C-alpha cells in the first residue's frame, strides 16, 4: 500500500535555527531519504516552501476567489511529505517515527486512495 507521510511543523522553529543547526537538519533529512531509497520504499518526496508563499483558491458563485496564505492558520503547517510503499500501517508508522519530522514536528500518516477497496501489497 502507498502511504503519504506528511510533516507538520512550526515554521518559526526553522527560521530561528543557526546555520549549523540548519545544516544538521538538512543532513538528517538526507540520511532519512537515503534509508527509504535503500529499503526500496520511497515513491516520492518533496519539501514545501513556507506558507508565506501559499495561496488558496476556491470558486465563489462560479468565480475563482484567490486569497493569500495557507488554508489552515494553525501553528503547525504542512512542511513536506514522503510518499512511500509499505506493506501495512505498522510499517508506515515505523517509517514515520524515524522521520526527523516526528522529532521537530509531527507526522500524519494517510493511506493513498487507489481503488474502492485496496488489497495489501505483497508483504
Amino acid at each position, binding site marked *: 500500500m502507498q502511504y503519504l507521510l506528511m510533516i507538520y511543523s512550526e515554521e518559526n522553529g526553522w527560521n530561528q535555527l543557526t546555520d549549523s543547526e540548519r545544516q544538521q537538519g538538512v543532513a538528517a533529512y538526507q540520511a532519512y531519504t537515503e534509508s527509504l531509497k535503500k529499503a526500496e520504499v520511497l515513491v516520492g518526496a518533496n519539501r514545501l516552501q513556507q506558507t508565506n508563499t501559499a495561496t488558496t483558491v476556491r470558486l465563489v458563485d462560479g468565480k475563482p476567489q484567490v486569497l493569500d496564505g495557507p488554508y489552515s492558520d494553525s501553528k503547525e503547517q504542512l512542511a513536506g511529505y514522503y510518499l512511500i510503499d509499505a*506493506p501495512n500501517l505498522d510499517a508506515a508508522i515505523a517509517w514515520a517515527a524515524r522521520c526527523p519530522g516526528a522529532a521537530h514536528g509531527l507526522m500524519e500518516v494517510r*493511506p493513498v486512495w487507489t481503488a*474502492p*477497496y*485496496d488489497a*495489501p501489497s505483497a508483504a
Partner: protein
Amino acid sequence: MSPSGGERGAEVAAHSVAEAVARRSYGKLVALLAMRTRDVAAAEDALADAFAAALADWPERGCPANPEAWLMTVARRRAIDGARHRYVGDEVANQLTILADEIDEREAGALPDRRLALLFACTHPALDAGIRTPLMLQVVLGLEAKTIASAFLMSPAAMTKRLVRAKTKIREAGIPFSVPEREELPGRLAAVLEAVYAAYAEGWTDPVGGDTVRRDLAGEALFLAQLLVELLPGEPETLGLLALMLYAQARRDARRDAAGDYVPLSAQDPQTWNTPMIDTANALLRRASACNAIGRFQLEAALQSAHVYRCRTHRPNWDEIVQLYDALLAIAASPVVAVNRALALAERDGPQVALDALEPYADDPRLVDYQPYWAARADLLARAGATVEALGAYDLAIGLERDPAVRRFLQRKRIDLSSAKS
C-alpha cells in the same frame, strides 16, 4: 404443508449444530477470512451467508462431519463472489483463492487459529480507544451490536455506526492482522486484556445460561485469557486477568441455590466452590507477583483471593481489602471501583463511613442506571437506619436489575425492611 416429525428433528439438530459452531468458531472463521483482505465487514457478511446456507442445507443432507470446514468453504466462496461483484480487482479474489487452497490442504478440523492476530488488529492504537473493546467483542466473539451497546451504555445505532467506522479504518488504512513485536507487545496488550475481561463480565451476568447469545462467552473469554497466558508467560497482567476470571468462575454455580434463588457471596458455602480452579488462580497470582509489576487485574485478582480466604477461614480481612481497593482506585479510578470499595469500607468502619465515601459520586451520570450502585446504597442506607431512603434505593435497584433471581432477592430484602419499619 407441514414438515414431518423427522424433518423437524433434523432442522432442530441442524440449528443447534450451527449455533454451537457459531459460538465456538465465529472469531476463528472471521480471522481466517479477513486476515489477507483486512475486510472484516465482508468476512462477517460472508460468514452470515454461510450460516444461512447451513441452516438450509444441513436439515436436508445432514450435518457435515466437519461443520467448521464446511462453513469456511462456503463463506470463502461467498467472499470471492462478493469481491468480484464489487469490482475490487482480481488481487483480492486471488488472495481469497490462495487462502482457500492453503486451508483445503489442511486436515479437516485443523483450521489455523489466527484469533490472536485478530485481537491485536481490533485493539490497534490507530483505532479510537473507546471502540477497541466493542470491536473485539463483535469481531472475535460474535456479539451483536445491541448486546455490546447495552454493556457499554450506548445506543445500538451509535454503537453500530462506530463499529462500521472502525472496520473501515482497519481495511482502508491497512491495519495489519499480526501479533506485535515483543517490545511493543505489553503496551498493546492492555487493550486486549480489557476486551477479554469485558467479554467475561458479559458471560458472568447470565448465571443460568438461559441466554444463548451470552451462554458461551465466559468460556470463550477464559479460552482467550488462557491463550494470552501461553503466549506471554512472563506478563503479570495477563496472569492476573486469568487468575481473576478463574476466581469468579470457581464461584459461578454457587450464586444459585437448588431453587434457583440468588445467593450472595457472604451466604455461599465455600465447599461448593471449584477448588482446583481456585488453586490454579492462586498459583497464577503468585507467579504474577514475582514479576514485581502491579496492575489493575492483579489487584482485582488479589481482592478475589482475599474474599476466598475470608469466607473459608471466617477471619475478617476487611482492612486488607480496603487497602487493595485504595491501590486499585489509585491506578484505575472509576465509580464502579468506588462502589465496591464503599461496601468493604462498611464492613470495616460501618455503613455511614461508606455512605460518606460515596457522596462525591452522588451526581455522577455514569451511576444513574448502574444497578450495583443502587443495590449498594439500599443496603448501606438500611443498615444506617435511613429506612425511607433505603426503600427508594431498593426500588431503583430492583427496577434496573435484569436477572430475575437477583430481583427476587432484592424484593425480599425490601419487604423485610418495610415490614421491620411498621
